[in-house]
């Protein structure tokens, strides 16, 4: 990670409010954030502190009430819906706690979908989907429907889908929230390999073991950053030990 380089993602004075007057809720309240290329950033905090809202704002899924967000230098907060969608398609990959896979599509078809939306040929999309499924260790599950996969396998398909269009940044919202310990370990290893490959990651999590694998950890409370800790980073090969998981 190089601190002097231009950040991939930059937010300044970011706010998201719901309601008004006495019922005003400050879900995100004046956040400044820089995420450098190749960095893995973990955001922690109690339920309802605004972590997921922040992630949605950073990925262009939701619009801020105030402040600015730049992704690769482009202002997200000033983009129209269509431009935002195109940006999400090409530059952002999402991983959700609830996986959000298409139930009627196989693992491979789910991974192909962003590429087909991006106009890639079915053949090229299928080839890349197979490569990505191999990368996440699911070569033999390519033709399985999500219902036939375990939670961990579904989340790995979701990660493969997030990587489909080679995004600048992957935003993961509680990626291990629905997983058991074994599946969590699998995910840790996957994120580790992504980190090693230079993929920029922002992971929102409750789980201190996941946060411990990041380069930087930010704690949130009541919509604002409460604390920021620079972790070891680059601890390849010892993630599971650090996280206290059996491996």
């Amino acid at each position, binding site marked *: 990670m190089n601190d002097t380089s231009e950040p991939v993602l930059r937010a300044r004075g970011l706010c998201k409010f719901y309601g008004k007057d006495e019922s005003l809720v400050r879900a995100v309240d004046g956040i400044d954030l820089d995420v450098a290329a190749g960095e893995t950033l973990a955001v922690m905090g109690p339920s309802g502190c605004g972590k997921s809202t922040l992630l949605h704002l950073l990925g262009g*899924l939701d619009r801020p009430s105030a402040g600015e967000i730049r992704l690769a230098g482009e202002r997200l907060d000033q983009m129209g819906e269509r431009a935002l969608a195109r940006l999400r398609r090409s530059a952002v990959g999402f991983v959700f706690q609830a996986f959000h896979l298409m139930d*009627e*599509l196989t693992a491979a078809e789910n991974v192909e979908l962003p590429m087909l*939306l991006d106009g890639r040929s079915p053949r090229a*999309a299928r080839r890349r989907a197979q490569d990505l499924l191999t990368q996440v260790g699911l070569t033999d599950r390519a033709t399985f*429907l999500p*219902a036939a996969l375990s939670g961990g396998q579904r989340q790995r398909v979701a990660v493969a889908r997030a990587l489909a269009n080679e995004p600048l940044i992957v935003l993961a919202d509680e990626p291990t929230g629905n997983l058991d310990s074994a599946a969590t370990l699998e995910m840790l290893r996957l994120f580790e390999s992504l980190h090693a490959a230079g993929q920029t990651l922002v992971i929102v999590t409750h789980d201190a073991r996941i946060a411990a694998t990041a380069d930087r950890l930010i704690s949130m409370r009541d919509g604002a950053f409460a604390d920021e800790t620079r972790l070891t980073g680059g601890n390849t090969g010892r993630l599971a030990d650090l996280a206290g998981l059996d491996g």
Partner: protein
Amino acid sequence: MGQILLVGRLASRDLRRRPAQTLLLLLVITAAMATLTLGLVLHGVTSKPYQQTRVATAGPDVVASSVGFTGQSNRSSAAASFTALADAPGVIAHSGPYPVAWPVLRADGITADAMAEGRDPARAPVDQPEVIQGTWVRGDGVVMERAFAAALGVHVGDHVTLDGRRFPVIGIAVTAAIPVFSQVCFYGGCSGPPGKPLSFDTGLVWVTQATAHSLASPGNPLTYYLNLRLSDPAAAPAFAAEHQPPPGPGPAPLTAWQSLQDAAGTLVAQEQQVLVPASWLLALLAVASVAVVAGGRMAEQEKRVGLLKAAGGTPPLAAAVLLAEHLVIAIVAAGAGLAAGWLAAPLLTSPGASLVGSPSAPPLTWPNIVLVTAVAITVAGASTLVPALRAARISTVAALAGTARPPRRRQWLIKFSARLPVPLLLGLRLVTRQPRRFLLSTASFTVTATTIVAVLIYHATINTDARLSGPFAGAPDPGNARVSEVLLVITIVMIILAAANAIFTTWATVLDARRFSAIVRAIGATPQQMFAGLVAAQLLPALIGAVLGIPAGEALYAAVQNGGLHGSPPAWWLLAMIAAILLTVTVLTAIPARLGGRVPVAEILQAEFA
């Protein structure tokens, strides 16, 4: 008892929670039931006007004509048979025989065949036409039958020509002795010069006997009409049958008043011929509507069913609530449809200008009430049964988790759609997820297109008929105008119902596709692509339905017409119909699709997980 109360309470609360949807469903079923009621109650409604006309004109019980008796010897034979008929047992009075000439009438540029009956200025004891306007026959004046005059646009004071001779129109009258216009030739027959094709739209005029004689020629001789009054009018058919000459070529020369009364019902019978199949088509549309709404509600109501079951509701209870909601709507719609059909019947059963008086409200018999109610309940029951059974069967946990209705998968469609542009890819995949809704939607569009095509064929047939008749087209047939009006109303009702169906289907698809839409938007589909996908998902069944409607409309017209002339609408009519259906669907889809697209992706994804 408690359970019935609970079902009633849950059903009524749910209906009140969705007033727009409930009202639309009510309208859809009511329209179908009103049309069915109309089709059922029209039978025999013109008998009263005919009876009123019969009384006002001292109408005959039997009419004898000499049409078909050609040649001198035959005419002598007809005269002899008329004398015998006038003296036959049971005959208490008669008028005539009156000479009838068959000239060509021209009025205001329209040429029509006419039946010119020669009458005395004095009042006849049997069949004295009721003068509605002007005066009865005298001098060189012509009195025209009211419906014939209306079809030609002729009024008292105008002039017409009979075989080229100019006559003033001095009166307008009605009679019960000759079938209503344009059925004049269908009982008793018509005549004309040899070699000239006979028009079926011959109209009646009255002239003096001297004028009638002057209009005859050796090539177009007079025929004679004799009006008989019997001591027992009810026995008129038996009398006519008894005195009918042996079967031979030409029409039967004796006509009982009951046959003339039936002829008066022809206009209404034509309308009935259209209304009955239309009501069944509308009922099919109603089935599609209710099925889509019930299915769509299931998608919305999974959690409600889960909660009901979790709170101790049995599977039959969950099914009963859904069934009860639609059965209540069906019963209310049956009542409203019966009332609407009964009230609308007089509008369709105007006896036409050939008769005086107006029809009474048609009889609403118990069998009709039971039939309409049963059809309404069947419509609602059949279309709600599948979702109701599904509600009963789904697992409580799955319903609460919102995973009770996994979308369908069609491997080949998914593979095929990958090769298509993004909107079509999304549209096809949406279609694939709900094949039952796709079939219902296709059926709805097919029914609508079938009706429109049948109507287009009807108009093409009228045009073809007019073209073939050329200068002998005659006066416009009032039956055609009335059937056209009925068809127009049915088509409008059907289009409204199909539009309601399209809105139901799109709305249900938008609701079902919320998660699908949120995910594809999260991974980069633009709102426009998603919108185009939803439109494509609706256009696909619309296109298939419109195309299937063409042969189906041909078959429907052939079945209703039961033989006879069958015109072909120009290709551009059919193409315009397909284009209009697709355009309408696009517009109707736009509203729910846009509203669905406004919900932020993050909100839907959060809600999905919550």
